[in-house]
Structure formats: structure tokens, C-alpha cells
């Protein structure tokens, strides 16, 4: 009973999978790096365009998947960040001695998994999407296995992510055992009526642990810096942007759709975790000298702020989550993009130590300007998108009267200022005999360069004139609740 409407709604996912298959066949036929990259980018763009058509066709809901406005938003975010990562990986993999094409394949599969996860409303699809998102990541992280660090990050991510999935599954099983229903809405309705027994709560808790790991919420965050530092540039970027965004959207859906989840006590636990994540995330990064580890910690902190949207879960919450996600994605893609560009073409270890960036402004003014804009946006200074994001989150906290969380945001962003500023100033320091790393001369012309510059301009444009995005966001999120 797969009606034509279903097919229409599924086209974006189908297109991505089709691209993956074509890339696979392409590899089997003749290994051609540029062609593979081109095909995958084309495929993703097609998916994006089709997404627009599906969006205009209106909502479609099936037991397993739902294609409403929130999943549209999720898919756009996943596709956009994958596109950015792909363009960057092209420049990055130029110098890679081994096989280059499989990287694109893995990324496309991960993207498909992300899209499924975003649209899931059934435990099975949630599990399926999550795993389809994570499995290729093991491969991408350990792609340049000749370099010890990449292998190390791959192994760490595999072991811990598998453990997290086990937690998630066990949680699902317990919830299923209590409610007998696997679709999220029905599951939680069943729980509501049966008065949430100990097992159900344990199940919910374990699910929270599983998803918490993926969002690197504090007690489960220890893997993040090592994996970000070790993994190759584009892989770490994908992990920091697409995968986290997808998981967050699904968590947002659960919180928005499921009233039962409004168990007051679960919110206080989530609130506590959010506060902890903000503070610890920023504290860890205080005197960090490795830029990729620092960006890892800052992504932990930013998801601490984002959790506030989940904790409040009404009024402005969804709109704030959407806006903050967009600003976070743009900024992190920009920042990681610069790191990747500096370390491409691939020549062993990435350029992530701070002394590589000393005095970059006087060698590559525009690249350093992009990084400065991204750091300012992470810190939430006006003229950048980060400021709008922070403004929304603080507004949400104030409207909901959550003074502890608002205090946490302020303390967190103040601590954050310290290390963002420290990094920013090293870009401008002039020291004779600098051992800094340089991007290739014509980096601006290449595809990766264009994306990074575009992102920086987007960050500033969104910071100065956010109305179009805000209007689009309020349209997107209005009918959901």
C-alpha cells in the first residue's frame, strides 16, 4: 500500500541512496576521484531540490516515517552540511595516497541514515537511521588508518558508539515491554496510561543515555575531543554538524510530540545535564592548545545551550532550537572548513595545533578573517549569527523563567570568551620565523574555499539581517505543536 504520495515524500531519501549506488558502481567501473565527487555533489543537490517539491506537496505520515515540516528542516540541515563536507573533502583527499572514492560513498550512506533518522517516528526507524548514520562514520574516521591518530579515533568511536547503541536498544526494549507499542506516539501514550512504572522510567533513562552519547552531553562527552582531533577534517566536520543535528532533531521530535515525556522529573534531570554540559564544556576548553579539540569542546558547550530548548519544550522552544541549530551549523562548518583547508591537501597529520595558526592573517588575510568571524560567532558577538542564536536561547530561558539555566548560559559564554579570544588573537600576532601551516595559494578559487567564504558571508549576513531566516523558521515550526 505504498501510494504515490508516499513515493513522492520518500524521493529525497531515494535520490541520496541512488547517488550512493551510482558512486558504488562508479568505483567498480573506474576509479576517478573528480568524477565521484562531482556525482555525489550532483546527487545531493538533486535531493535538495526534490526536497523543496516534497515540502510544497504538504505533510505525509506513515507508521514508520513522517515527512512534516520538522523533518524537512532536519533533511535540509543534514543535506546542506553533507554538501559542505563533501566539497571540503575533495580538496582534502587530493593528496591522499590511498583510495579516495570510498570516502564519498561512506558520507552518502551516513547522509541517508541522517535523513531517515530525522523523519523517523517509530523506534525501528529511529534505531535504523541512527545506525545507518553511525556505521559509515566509523569508516570515515578511521579512513586514513596509516596515521595512528585516525585509527585511534575510529576505534574509540566504534567501541563507545556501539555501547551507546546497546544502551539505546535496551531502553527501547524496556519501553516496548511496558507499552507494547513501538511507534513513539503510541508508546508514550501507552506509558502515560499505565502510569510510567520503574521499568518504563529506566527505559526512558537508558534511551536518554544512548542519545545523550551521540549529542556528547557531559557525563558521556569524553570521546568527543579525541575523535575530533584524530579524525580526518571532513569526517570530524560531518560528525560535529550533520550527525549531531540529526540526533538533536529526533530528540526534539520526541520531546515535542510526546506529552508523556513531560514527566516533570525528567525535565529537571535534562535541565541539570544541560547546565552541567554548558559549564564543563567551556571549562575543558580553557587553556586548550589544539584547535580541533577546542572546537570539540565548544560543540559540547553549544549543545549544552541547545538542550535548554528541549528542557523548556514549549512557546518559543522549537523556533529557538531551529534558529540555534542553523547558526551552530553554519559557524562550525566554517570553523572546521578553515581547519580542513589548512590541512589539505592531505599530508599526514592535520594542522590543528595553535602555533600552526600564529600570524595567519598576515599570510592568508581572508582565510584568517573567515576563522575570526566563525570564532566571534561561536562566542556570540554581534554582527555574527552566533549572537542571534544566543539572543534566542537567552530569550527562551528568560521567557520560561529558568533562571538557573540562564545563569549557566551567561557563565558558560563568559568562560567561552576567554578561549575564543585567545585563539583569535594568535591569528594576528606577528612573530618572526613562524612555523605556521599554509593553505595552497589558490585556496580561494577551489570549491572548498568558495564554500568556506560563502559560509562566512552567510554568518555575517544572518548576524546583521536575520529576518528571512526567522520568518522561514517560524513558518516551519508553527504547525508542529
Amino acid at each position, binding site marked *: 500500500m505504498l501510494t504515490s504520495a508516499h513515493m513522492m515524500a520518500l524521493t529525497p531519501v531515494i535520490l541520496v541512496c541512488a547517488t550512493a549506488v551510482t558512486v558504488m558502481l562508479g568505483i567498480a567501473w573506474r576509479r576517478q576521484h573528480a568524477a565521484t565527487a562531482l556525482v555525489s555533489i550532483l546527487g545531493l543537490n538533486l535531493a535538495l531540490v526534490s526536497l523543496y517539491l516534497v515540502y510544497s506537496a504538504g505533510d505525509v505520515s506513515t507508521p514508520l516515517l513522517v515527512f512534516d515540516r520538522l523533518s524537512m528542516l532536519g533533511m535540509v540541515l543534514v543535506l546542506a552540511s553533507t554538501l559542505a563536507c563533501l566539497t571540503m573533502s575533495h580538496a582534502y583527499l587530493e593528496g591522499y595516497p590511498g583510495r579516495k572514492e570510498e570516502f564519498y560513498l561512506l558520507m552518502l550512506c551516513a547522509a541517508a541514515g541522517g535523513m531517515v533518522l530525522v523523519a523517523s517516528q517509530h523506534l525501528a526507524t529511529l534505531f535504523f537511521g541512527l545506525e545507518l548514520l553511525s556505521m559509515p562514520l566509523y569508516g570515515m574516521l578511521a579512513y586514513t588508518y596509516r596515521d595512528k591518530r585516525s585509527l585511534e579515533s575510529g576505534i574509540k568511536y566504534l567501541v563507545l558508539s556501539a555501547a551507546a547503541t546497546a544502551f539505546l536498544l535496551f531502553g527501547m526494549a524496556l519501553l516496548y515491554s511496558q507499552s507494547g507499542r513501538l511507534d513513539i506516539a503510541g508508546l508514550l501514550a501507552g506509558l502515560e496510561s499505565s502510569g510510567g512504572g520503574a521499568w518504563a522510567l529506566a527505559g526512558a533513562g537508558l534511551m536518554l543515555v544512548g542519545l545523550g552519547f551521540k549529542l556528547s552531553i557531559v557525563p558521556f562527552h569524553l570521546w568527543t575531543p579525541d575523535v575530533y582531533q584524530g579524525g580526518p577534517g571532513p569526517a570530524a566536520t560531518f560528525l560535529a554538524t550533520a550527525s549531531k543535528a540529526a540526533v538533536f532533531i529526533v530528540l526534539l521530535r520526541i520531546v515535542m510530540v510526546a506529552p508523556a515525556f513531560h514527566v516533570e522529573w525528567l525535565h529537571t534531570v535534562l535541565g541539570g545535564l544541560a547546565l552541567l554540559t554548558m559549564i564543563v564544556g567551556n571549562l575543558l576548553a580553557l587553556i586548550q592548545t589544539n584547535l580541533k579539540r577546542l572546537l570539540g569542546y565548544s560543540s559540547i558547550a553549544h549543545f549544552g545551550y541547545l538542550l535548554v530548548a528541549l528542557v523548556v519544550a514549549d512557546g518559543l522552544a522549537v523556533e529557538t532550537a531551529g534558529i540555534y541549530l542553523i547558526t551552530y551549523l553554519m559557524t562550525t562548518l566554517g570553523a572546521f572548513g578553515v581547519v580542513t583547508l589548512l590541512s589539505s591537501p592531505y599530508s599526514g597529520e592535520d594542522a590543528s595545533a595553535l602555533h600552526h595558526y600564529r600570524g595567519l592573517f598576515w599570510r592568508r588575510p581572508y582565510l584568517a578573517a573567515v576563522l575570526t568571524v566563525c570564532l566571534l560567532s561561536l562566542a556570540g558577538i554581534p554582527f555574527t549569527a552566533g*549572537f542571534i542564536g544566543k539572543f534566542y536561547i537567552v530569550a527562551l530561558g528568560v*521567557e520560561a523563567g529558568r533562571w538557573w539555566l540562564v545563569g549557566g548560559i551567561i557563565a558558560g559564554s563568559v568562560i567561552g570568551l576567554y578561549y575564543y579570544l585567545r585563539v583569535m588573537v594568535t591569528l594576528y600576532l606577528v612573530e618572526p620565523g613562524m612555523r605556521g601551516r599554509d593553505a595552497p595559494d589558490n585556496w580561494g578559487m577551489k570549491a572548498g574555499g568558495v564554500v568556506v567564504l560563502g559560509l562566512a558571508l552567510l554568518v555575517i549576513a544572518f548576524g546583521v539581517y536575520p529576518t528571512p531566516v526567522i520568518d522561514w523558521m517560524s513558518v516551519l515550526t508553527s504547525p508542529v505543536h
Partner: protein
Amino acid sequence: MILLWLVLVPFIGGLLCWQADRWGEKAPRWIALITMMLVLIMTLVLWLQGDYQLPAMNAGADSIRWAMEWKVPWIPRFGIDVHLALDGLSLVLIALTGFLGMLAVLCSWKEIDDRIGFFHLNLLFILGGVVGVFLAIDLFLFFFFWEMMLVPMYFLIALWGHSGSEGKTRIRAAIKFFIYTQASGLLMLVAILALVFAHHANTGEYSFSYADLLQTPLSENMAMVLMLGFFIAFAVKLPVVPLHGWLPDAHAQAPTAGSVDLAGILLKTAAYGMLRFALPLFPEASQTFAPIAMTLGLVGVFYGAVLACGQRDIKRLIAYTSISHMGFVLIGIYSGSELALQGVVVLMVAHAFSAAGLFIMSGQLFERLNTRDLQEMGGLWGRMGSLPGFSLCFVAASLGMPGTANFVGEFMVLFGTFPTAPVVVIIGACGMVFAAIYSLILMQRVYFGPSLNDQKFEGLDGREFTMLLGIFALVVLFGLYPQPLLDTTSAVMGEVQGLFQGSLPAGSVPMSSLAGGGQ
């Protein structure tokens, strides 16, 4: 439309300077100078055209009539719009920004010789941000510019400053400056948002505009909490004593242009903020908070003075004197009498000039002796052309010598505050003795006393002479004939006083017999 140009000109000028770096060393400097001259001329033109006598807030009418206004919707979702408005107070302060901007460019003509384009970019962005702060009437836009002007100042201190003694590097000072202001700024953001949501709660629609938020009825302690949010943000920037830690470090490490800007204009944005936002938005809360604020002002006066006497670095000494002067400003703002408020405006302008003069002097001393340590100076009187003469004039201004604008400002503040808080004024007047101590200590240690060697230094060249003469002429002009300045801001101050006084029982507090110990 001219208001938008007032804000945009510095930013465009800054970008031009950055690019002009390629065409040679002189180009960025001239572009920066011309830009700031343009801003100054625009304000003077505005001042000559518009008359600022008309009462800004006519009785009962809800909307305040600004001298000039320019409004464009920006984020309709929250009722935020780019709302620039000009009245007497902001006009005076923007003219001050223009003038001090020119000074900053002039005094770093020889001092900055590497990365000149980028230096002027930052310098002009600071000035653009400050002009934005003075014009913004929409609270979001105000906060936007308030936070935005910190970044270029941070770069100015971190990249062109000179490192202080024993490990106090300029980057630490820059970061300390940034964090102090940013953290307090965030508190203000929370206060603004709480105010907006309170407004939304009873009128149903979001609005950040100044006129609407003036009418939001707030419960007693809610108003106090929000007022504190605003007050702390402005107290850090003013600076008020417990939160002043950043100023001496920032001044000691900043280049001369940075110090001139910092002391001249950035401190005034805080006082402007209090007069524009903290007082009118929460009149009752400010009224109950007034005694505490005045005591903080007093503490500031004495604490700044005592520390100034103990400093070895000349720029730190001048920084602490600014803390002492700003103590008087705080007393004047919270006294709630129109005379004191007018005195605050004069004192702000006077302090801007005298602090700028002192910092330019210390910059020129650094250029000649390349040290800022008072221990290594002494007996410089006859050996530097007319620089000592000008320093004597600025030191006289800073200790409040009659005939200078500082005296007029300080005394108007004290005269105005006496009926409401006599004890505060009496203790404040004793502060004048301390002002004499630190000012003359500066004079004695640098210029008088035995000189280490009799090496003659070259005197002031044309540029430096005209700069110092210009500032001193203005200080004396406003000291002897401040009326034009007072007329421009009389309407605004009357309105602020009306709002502030409105909450007080009718008439000023009866003069209880002094023997009874006053307030």
C-alpha cells in the same frame, strides 16, 4: 537619513583604511582623519540647524519627540527595528566622539608604524560602534552596538598595546577588558529580555522600542532586579569601584589612541546608558537605589584617588584618576536634580578632554623616554619644549581648577546634589583634596624634582602642539562659557529629571537642619 550616515561613515572609512594600506603608509591615516572630521562636521551641522530647546517629552504625550528620528523594521518577529534617534545629549556625545576620534588618529601618527591599515580599521570600528550606541533607541540595537564596539578595542589593545610589567601581558589585559564588559553586557541582555517579556505579558505583542518599554508596569522587586541588571552593565563600563579592575590594565597596555578612545568615549557610553536607559526605564527602583549608588560613587572617588597616588606607571595613574572623576558622575546621575544632571554632562565632556590630554601627554612622554615608569622620570621641566606647560594645564584641569570645564561640571554636580544628599556632597567635596594630591603627585614626579641627566629632548612638533592647544582651548572655553553645551542638553536632562523626580514625593526633600546630620 543623515543619522544612518553618521553610523555608517566610520565603518566605511575603516574598511577603506584597511584596503588603503597597500597604497602607502600615509593613506590610511589621512582617510581615517577625514572620516572623523566628516562625523564632526555632520554633528556640528545638525547642531546649528536643529534647536534642542523644545521639551523632549511634552507633558502626558506618550511618544517622546526626538530632534531627529529614523526607523526601519529589522526583525518584525520580535518588533525589533533599526531605530536611530538624536536629541541634545546624544548629539553632544557624538560630536565628542568625532573630535576624540580625530585626536586618536592624530596622536598615533608616528606611534603606530606596523599594520597601519588594520589599526585604523579597528579604531574607526570602535568609533562607529560608539556612535551607534549613542543613536540607538531600540534596546536590541543598543545592545547590538554595545557588544560590538568591544571587539575592535580588544584587537587594538592586544595587537598594538605594549606589554606591562611582571607578566601582565597586553593580551591578558585585553581579555580581562573584554570579559568584564561582555559578562555585564549579558546581564543587561537578560534584563532587556525580561522587560520585553513583561511588556509582552500585558500588551500581547513584542516590542523593543524605547517609547513602548517606558510604559511597562513592573512589580516592585522585579523592577529592582531589572534595574540592577542594567546598572551592573553600566557600572562595569563607568567604572564603579568594585567592578573597575579592567580599566587600569586596559589603559596601561593600550596604545595612546586606544587610551584616548577608551577614556574619552567608552566611559561616556556607560554614563549615557544610565541617563538614557537605567533611570527612565525604572524610575522608582532607581530612586530607592540612589543612596547606594551615591555611596558607590563616593567610594569610587576615594578609592580611585588613593590608588592613583600609589602607582608607578603613569598611564595607570591617569586611569585611576578617571575612576575618581567618574565617581562624581555617578553621584550626579543619581542625585535627581536637573542642575546635577547638567553638571554630569559638562563633567563628562570635560573629563573626556582632560583625560585625552593627559593620555596624549603620556604618549608623547613614552615616545621620547620610551618608558612609562615614574621612577625613571623627574626634572623634565625645561627639557621638552612646551609639553610640560601643557601637562601643567591638563593636570590643573584634572584637579578641578576653576576656569576649566571640570570645575564647572564638578561644582554643578555638587551644588545640585546638596539639597537631596548633603552628607554625600560634604564627603565628596573632601574628594577634591585627594584630587589635588594625585594631580600634583603626577606633576612633581614627572616634571619637578632633581633630573637624572640633563639630556634635552626635542619639543612638540606642529601636529602635537595644535592638538594639545586645541584640547586645552576647549577645556577653558567650556570652563568659562559652557552655556551652548548646557542649552543643547537642557531639554533631555529636564525630561530625565522629570521621570526620576516624578517618583519622588512632591518637592525636593525639606532641608533638615544640618546639625541633625542631613539625609
